């Protein structure tokens, strides 16, 4: 599926003279990708540029061949969805189903299809029994799931998650991991901006490190987390299990606890 994003020599500044993004060139393929970096490195600005909410000062972004400067953000939203951090910033309907149908109606304008998509999305997040509820009568965690469903219902080929695991407990994180895996399985391009390195290591195939408005590292997640020094310079820590492997003198870069455990068990079998 050709769901590529091509970014060419992108420059952007909010205020003249203070460049936030300084010459970003990236091609996104089908791999699920995490964008990591300190606050202020330009990640959120980049996501907004991808979404067409901001336009490049110079350089270009093409979403499936469409240049973002030639269309509105609303126009791009049938191809690329962005799930914002705070669900309270978008929920305005008085029942869950209407809320989730808002997006698809905006881009589809056909009620039956919009309803089907909304129902499907709500099922994915486990809220199929709360259709008639007022979103503000539900918990914050449930509202986050509504926000996710609202974008999933738009059935875009590209989905960007902005900090999906903030304030989530263990179960919430596992559910989001499951949703991301399902979306990848459906052939969608999933991007995220995140600070949770453990989650990134466990879930995303490719990782891009932003530092001071530029791409500092770009590669498979394993490759990127091997570069301890560069990550430190970008102000980032590695996943806990990676650090454990390093401290034990292992040359292998571990991404998940399971990997480490099977590796260690093999070592045992070889007789310690």
């Amino acid at each position, binding site marked *: 599926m050709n769901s590529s994003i091509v970014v060419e020599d992108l420059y952007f500044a909010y205020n003249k003279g203070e460049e936030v993004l300084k010459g970003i060139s990236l091609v996104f393929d089908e791999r699920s990708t995490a964008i990591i970096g300190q606050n202020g490195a330009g990640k959120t600005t980049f996501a907004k540029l991808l979404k067409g909410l901001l336009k490049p000062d110079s350089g270009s972004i093409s979403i499936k061949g469409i240049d973002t400067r030639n269309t*509105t953000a609303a126009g791009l*939203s049938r191809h690329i969805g962005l799930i914002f951090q705070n669900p*309270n910033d978008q929920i305005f309907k008085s029942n869950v189903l209407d809320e989730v149908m808002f997006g698809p109606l905006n*881009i589809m304008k056909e009620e039956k299809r919009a309803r089907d998509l909304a129902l499907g999305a709500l099922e994915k997040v486990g809220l199929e029994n709360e259709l008639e509820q007022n979103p503000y009568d539900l918990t914050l965690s449930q509202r986050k799931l509504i926000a996710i469903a609202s974008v999933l219902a738009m059935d875009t080929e590209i989905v960007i998650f902005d900090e999906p695991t903030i304030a989530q407990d263990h179960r919430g994180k596992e559910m989001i991991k499951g949703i991301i895996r399902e979306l990848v399985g459906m052939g969608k391009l999933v991007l995220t901006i995140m600070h949770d390195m453990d989650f990134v290591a466990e879930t995303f195939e490719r990782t891009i490190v932003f530092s001071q408005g530029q791409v500092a590292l770009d590669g498979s997640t394993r490759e990127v987390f091997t570069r301890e020094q560069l990550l430190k310079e970008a102000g980032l820590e590695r996943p806990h299990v990676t650090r454990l492997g390093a401290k034990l003198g292992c040359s292998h870069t571990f991404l998940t606890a399971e990997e480490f455990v099977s590796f260690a068990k093999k070592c045992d079998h070889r007789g310690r």
Partner: protein
Amino acid sequence: METLSLYVDRDSPVHRVDPISKLLYILAATAIPIILPSLLTAAVVLAISVALLLLGRIFRRVIPLISVIVFVLLTILIIQGLFRAGNVTPLFQLGSLIFYREGLLYAVRISLRVINIMLAFAILILTTKPSDLFETLVRKGLSPRIGYVLSSVLQIIPQMQNTVGTITDAQRSRGMETEGSLAVRLRAFIPLIGPVVMSSLTQTRERSIALEVRGFSAKGKKSFLNEEIQEPYHRFIRWGLLLSIILALVWRVAA
């Protein structure tokens, strides 16, 4: 815009005067021309205000602020000069339009009063830091809660603009069009109102909790970090202003 304020940060004799004196000046500049309604009084007060503005080095800043009112007053001047009932004495002629003395005088009187009030307010607003003004009022007895609301509103409203921006972005991301015809742009308001209101309410609530745990509701007298600047001449100015109002009243009654 970090704070909603027109304060011009400079050091001048006018800046150094305390806020209460400037409030009393507004009172005097408004009341005296009413008590003694001669054109001379109004003109004198105007001259004093202009002098103060020049002294405070803010005269040029005032011009854009009062330009709208001046335009309106000019319109009144023309209309009253031409058409006021009771216009009998022609003063001058422009083409076929005759301007009468009575109407013009009436309009000039009103204009001077309005401009005097505006200039007096400008002196206060352009040379006083809002935080100093509110702190002085609280020292004099204004409820600290009201003082807080006044002070915080000036900073929080600009901050709210960020929130509105984020909410707009979130809805645009879901396909809501904001660019285009007027109808399109009006319809874009509806998905914004709910979240903006909710988010203001949520933030206000969280903030009031933060205030509570910092003792905001403590009974007992509050103190102030800033030292109160009490120059002796401030009292002189304040009494002087009050005295001038009283003198004006006396003059009026006696005459």
